[in-house]
């Protein structure tokens, strides 16, 4: 690690200070006396596993959670934050992880939403003023988005810019350095977009303090001036990236000596290239991808990488029958796979873990048990009749096998943590014992390090059992670390294929060159 250029900036007096913050939920002490300081014009990193208290802390900072004890000081003054509005009045704003923009409004309206000021007079909108207000904000971050564009017509990255522009509106209220909290801003961005975001963050530092939250250590170290590590509801350490090395940070986060490179958890046995492919895709064409040829052998993990718009998500969904294709064919074990819908794919032994877990992956209010047996109803039935005992046995077996932490199998899945939810969604395809091809679309999105490792171990174990896996990874490192082969897609076509044998992994940079 080379010395970070911005580490030299002279420490400014804290603009935001947290002392001994405590928040307890029944059975969980989410915040257990957190202390931290945010200085003027610095980028402060917050790292920690899910469950370390990050999200509770952030919610307390923007008034969504009221702490049981401790205090929050803004510019030395003790404050009580009761709402997002309250926090904004004190110059604290947050860019939420699930984007908080209204799709059917214009970018300008979203930017000024809730604080229209001169944009509204006597209840009437003054569009010219609104536009000007929004343009000012967008100019600050150097964005060229049309303020009157409908928000849902923008790309994800553009929407994130809109959101940052929106948060910066709090400057209008305080006329002082605002604190901008970015909660996991990179989790769904592509590599190119992440770089743009980092530039924005550096630009923001010129006139704001930034709290940057991420579970990706490399990012935190790359962009932050200082990093706090949270564990078990406490700040367990403060690090300057200049002095940090990822291994130490990682150990601080999980509180134990984990393998430095968690991708290489299991000993992957190389799949002989001579083995007949289990999945054969020939000339598959859909709305956003063309002429795709692809092979995946049993026991092989193939990662598909590509920038936003490469068509890889659609390809993945098409293989599951969830989006329509116009040409080409797909063979599974030599037999033609009917791409008529998810049902046909399920029956053929294909499983799919969607990226949008909360919307598409799980049925939130339904129990863990029912979510787990949703796709393979046969495991809980005798003939056409459900046998509760059978379901209980199967579900309990998988709960313990995947060490899913849940109060019980009848608990609503929505109440579990993200990692445990994802394990249930994965288990859905495993309970039948007949899955042969797994399509994993960002299976570790939003998961913390511990949960990720478990998912990785599970993927390896499955591969070892002969399951073919197509992986759309969360990061290039993940793709390279997990896959036996990486397929690069660009503009809807497969452009190249890079073998990734254990011991001979390519570097992320090699792949980026192929992607753009």
């Amino acid at each position, binding site marked *: 690690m080379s010395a970070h250029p911005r580490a030299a900036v002279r420490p400014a007096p804290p603009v935001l200070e947290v002392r001994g913050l405590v928040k307890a939920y029944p059975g969980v002490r989410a915040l257990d006396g957190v202390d931290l300081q945010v200085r003027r014009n610095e980028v402060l990193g917050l790292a920690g596993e899910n*469950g370390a208290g990050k999200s509770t802390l952030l919610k307390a900072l923007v008034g969504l959670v009221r702490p049981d004890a401790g205090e929050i000081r803004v510019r030395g003054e003790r404050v009580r934050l009761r709402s997002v509005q309250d926090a904004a009045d004190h110059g604290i704003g947050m860019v939420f992880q699930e984007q908080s923009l209204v799709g059917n409004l214009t970018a300008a309206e979203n930017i000024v939403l809730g604080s229209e000021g001169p944009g509204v007079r006597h209840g009437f909108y003054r569009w010219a003023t609104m536009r000007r207000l929004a343009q000012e904000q967008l100019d600050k971050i150097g964005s060229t988005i049309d303020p009157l564009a409908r928000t849902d017509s923008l790309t994800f990255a553009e929407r994130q810019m809109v959101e940052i522009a929106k948060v910066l509106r709090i400057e209008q209220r305080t006329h002082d350095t605002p604190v901008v909290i970015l909660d996991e801003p990179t989790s769904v961005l592509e590599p190119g977009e992440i770089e743009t975001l980092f530039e924005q963050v550096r630009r923001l530092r010129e006139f704001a303090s930034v709290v940057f939250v991420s579970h990706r250590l490399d990012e935190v170290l790359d962009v932050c001036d200082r990093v706090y590590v949270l564990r078990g509801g406490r700040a367990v350490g403060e690090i300057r990236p200049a002095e940090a090395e990822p291994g130490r940070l990682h150990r601080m986060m999980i509180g134990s000596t984990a393998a430095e490179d968690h991708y290489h958890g299991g000993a992957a046995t190389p799949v002989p290239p001579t083995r007949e492919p289990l999945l054969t895709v020939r000339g598959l064409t859909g709305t956003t991808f063309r002429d795709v040829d692809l092979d995946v052998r049993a026991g092989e993990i193939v990662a598909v990488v590509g920038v936003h718009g490469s068509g890889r998500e659609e390809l993945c969904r098409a293989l599951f029958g969830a989006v329509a294709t116009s040409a080409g064919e797909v063979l599974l074990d030599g037999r033609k796979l009917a791409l008529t819908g998810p049902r046909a*794919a399920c029956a053929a032994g294909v499983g799919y873990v969607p990226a949008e877990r909360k919307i598409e992956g799980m049925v939130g209010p339904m129990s863990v048990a029912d979510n787990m047996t949703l796709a393979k109803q046969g495991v809980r039935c005798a003939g056409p009749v459900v046998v509760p005992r059978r379901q209980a046995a199967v579900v309990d077996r998988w709960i313990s096998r995947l060490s899913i932490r849940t109060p019980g199998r*009848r608990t609503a899945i929505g109440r579990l943590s993200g990692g445990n939810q994802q394990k249930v969604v994965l288990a859905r395809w495993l309970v039948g014992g007949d899955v042969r091809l797994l399509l994993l679309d960002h299976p570790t999105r939003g998961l913390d390090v511990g949960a990720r490792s478990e998912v990785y171990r599970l993927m390896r174990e499955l591969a070892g059992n002969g399951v073919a896996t197509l992986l759309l990874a969360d990061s290039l490192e993940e793709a390279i670390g997990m896959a036996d082969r990486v397929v690069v897609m660009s503009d809807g076509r497969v452009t190249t294929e890079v073998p990734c044998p254990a011991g001979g992994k390519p570097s992320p940079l090699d792949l980026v060159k192929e992607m753009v």
Partner: protein
Amino acid sequence: MSTPAAGTAEPSGSAAVAAGPTATERLTSLMPVLALAVLVVALAAVDPDFLRRSSLMAVVDAAAPLAVLAAGATLVVLCGGIDLSIAALASLSSVLLALWLPGLDALAWPAVVAAAAVAGALQGAAHVFLRIPSFIVTLGGMSIFSSIALVVSGAATVPVDDDTSIRWGFTRVLGSVPSAAVVAVAVVAALALLVTLTPLDSAIKATGYSEAAARLAGVPVDLVKVGAFAVSGACAGLAAVLLVARTFSGGPTLADSLLLPAVAAIVVGGTAITGGHGGVWRTLVGALVVTLLRVGLSTVGVSAAYESILYGAIIVVAVALTLDRSKVLVVK
């Protein structure tokens, strides 16, 4: 992963293998029954004769066609849709039954129920394959069924001269129990068993709570929905049989006015109009509550104007009590 259920409000102490519904949830699910009891007591306070066995039986009898009608539509609501055509379809079925009885005799009513099921399935298919919201499909279905009923009946009531083959729908069993009530309980029990004993249970709930997730888990969402509409249609047909049995005729507008009471019965029973949460048993209770309001208020002597006002007020309060808001995040 050191903390169980990290960051959520779930009490991690109760790590029993099968953490079921909480006490509050159980209380909410019993609310419809409590609402029913309170209503009966209130009506009895105004008119003590209301507690006579014959009076209560008359309520049960009156609620039966409504319960059958609403029970089928409950499945559609559980799937996240709505069926506004049930009443018009029941009217059409009543006309068909009256027309077919002379020719088909004992086969007439099964034929009508089957025809109504097909009509329901057609709407389901239009909803699923043409991707039209169920509200619109069934609103269209409502006017189409009404038109067909007017045309085939010549806009006239069709009298039933020989009702022997459907007399089972309006008689007394075990002394004074209305047979229609037995039919209603049987229909609800059959639907409940069909749903709870088979994987349909989670298929319907998953479809109602989160259609996208259900589809991607390989749940035959389209089939489930078409099936729900078919059952809804069949129930409308069966409700028509009960109505014809007690009216001794079929009419093109006979059951039209039962639409809103049926929807009210579903919602008062505690089934979420947004789908997923609820059940057919609840609708049975809901139908009793709605019938008490429809008929009970006026027969204990509440005047027309105040009856209407009370009906509006009580129905809102009943829903406020029976709705399990923990399962419904945003109330629209």
